[in-house]
């Protein structure tokens, strides 16, 4: 006997596993983050909470938000400043430097092999597992074993400018933080822009070249204006993911051994960004309620930005960010 399934139900049968997984990994945690943000959950009442979600030992409170938004947390001003430096600095690389990079690699450079070698090179940081990437940087900037200072003094940077440690002293640590994330982020822009440059109708460029325009003029007057949407897309997308990303900062500056030492030297080195602060509040200080409130602010910013993206880009552009509209 064949089991007959109604047309209306069949799609949902196929989609059920997806929906269950989304519920477990996304929707549930999202709601829980919001819920916890309004509680005083910490190591004191954690076990009681795990046994019973509605235990009387966990209190509802808005003091988390009062502390954060009222800047009553002594660290929060510093964290906000670091986050702004981090996001804007890295964004400059991810959205604008990568534009120059793509024009250089995908338009100026006509040699296919050289172009491919460069593209693969720039992709390596993204493909390499994070720990190994962090390890390479830790070595590279090490004043004793590494090459950073050697290279810089080789090109004429005076010795007195070079720090004893790139990891410990600001502003070097912040430059390093932006570089580490920038090398990974540059390839995101590069992939999107390169695809967009390749999708520009060749006639358009050839016509300009025949009329006597130089490659620089083509880049400035044709390619860049046409890449308006991809640029906006990359900026928008990267803003959101940078706000939430701290993995490399944790790996290079974090304490190693245990999550209880998650901050490591991040605070002293001036690289304690918002999301890492939230992580540390949860896993180093075990103040889960407060950490969730910090996360929740990111969630709210994230949701607002996503709604904005849908309004600005529309669904189609969100799906195919690399198409150029002529």
């Amino acid at each position, binding site marked *: 006997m*064949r089991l007959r399934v109604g047309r209306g139900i*069949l799609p949902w049968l*196929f*989609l059920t*596993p*997806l929906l269950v*997984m*989304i519920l*477990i*990994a*996304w929707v*549930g*945690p*999202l709601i*829980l*983050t919001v819920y916890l943000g309004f509680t005083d959950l910490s190591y004191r009442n954690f076990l009681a*909470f*795990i046994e019973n*979600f509605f235990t009387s030992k966990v209190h509802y409170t808005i003091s988390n938000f009062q502390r954060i938004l009222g800047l009553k947390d002594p660290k929060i001003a510093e964290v906000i400043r670091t986050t702004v430096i981090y996001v804007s600095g*890295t964004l400059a690389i*991810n959205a604008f430097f990568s534009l*120059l990079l793509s024009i250089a690699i995908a338009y*100026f*450079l006509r040699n296919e092999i050289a172009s491919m070698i*460069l593209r*693969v*090179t*720039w992709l*390596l940081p*993204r*493909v*390499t*597992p*994070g*720990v*190994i990437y962090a*390890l*390479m*940087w*830790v070595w590279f900037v090490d004043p004793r*074993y590494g*090459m*950073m200072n*050697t290279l810089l003094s080789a090109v004429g940077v005076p010795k007195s400018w070079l720090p004893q440690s790139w990891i410990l002293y600001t502003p070097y640590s912040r430059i390093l933080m932006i570089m580490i994330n920038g090398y*990974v982020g540059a390839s995101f822009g590069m*992939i*999107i822009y390169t695809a967009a440059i390749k999708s520009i109708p060749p006639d358009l460029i050839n016509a300009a070249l025949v009329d006597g325009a130089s490659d*620089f003029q083509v880049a400035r007057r044709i390619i860049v204006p046409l890449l308006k949407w991809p640029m906006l897309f990359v900026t928008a997308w990267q803003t959101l*993911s940078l706000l*939430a990303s701290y*993995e490399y900062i*944790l790996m290079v500056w974090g*304490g190693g*051994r245990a999550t209880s030492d998650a901050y490591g030297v991040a605070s002293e080195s001036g690289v304690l960004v918002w*999301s890492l602060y*939230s992580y540390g509040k*949860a896993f180093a200080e075990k103040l889960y309620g407060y950490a969730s409130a910090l*996360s929740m602010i*990111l969630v709210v910013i994230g949701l607002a930005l*996503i709604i904005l993206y849908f309004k600005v880009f529309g669904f189609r552009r969100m799906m195919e960010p690399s198409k150029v509209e002529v």
Partner: protein
Amino acid sequence: MPAKNRRTRALLRKTAKIIVIIVVAVIPAIPIWIMYAWLIAQSFSARVIQGILPSGFTLSNWRFLWTRVSTVYEAGLSIWPYVANTLYLALGVAGLVVLVSSMAGYALSRMEFKGRMKMMEFIIALHAFPSVILLIALFILLNKMGLYGRGYVTLTGIMIVKAGLEIPMASWIIKGFFDNIPWDLEWAALVDGCSRWKVWRYIILPLVLPGIGAVSIFSFLSGWSEFLLVYTYVSNEKLYTLPVLIYYLISDLESMPQWGLLTAMGLFYTLPVLIFFSTSQKLLLRIYVGGVKG
């Protein structure tokens, strides 16, 4: 002399172009080359001079493959249990992702149902949303579900969570592959009396295999590279995966600078990624754009 003038101008422009390429794309790439050169050189040499020049070829850095090595972290460390843990996590993630997303991708691509558009918008929105924000809540959920601190059960919990985070995008990618298969093929089979399940199994599935292959590679690699979830949720040292183990060894660098061992282990761990990347670069490119990395 206008002709000569023009020629010098053209030459000037060409030089300027090369300078731009070198300044923008080549010089900033030098650190990347140096880092990789060091990783490889260091792992095969007793010591390196001037940062990346190997001296004294040796395989002793790779001895962790056949013997136990002593580290600050553990006196007689054997790497294979950690390889097994990493494989368990990565294969599990890949299996779950492929199973769930190929079903969902098919439904999204081929079936009409109410809310299909909304569903796709939802998936794209999830894709844009950075999942690391949810780490704290996921920790509480794992605790609540009794998946915390329970040996392999914990690793399984991480596997489910990781797969769940990857699945929306994977479904989206597989949907794209389904979209490229002509409808007519499916119609013909349906008209000939195939059930939808049979159509899916015998006609569509073989055609989307490249897509499924791409997604399984990608999800395997993302499980293989996963650091944060394991670092945060696994308290039992026997269950560490390779990235967490390597991270711990890095933090011991000051007390015991075993660069040779560390680079060899790191290279060993990176190898699958590099192999997959070099063989299926184009497919992975499409997918890596969507990763959660900044």
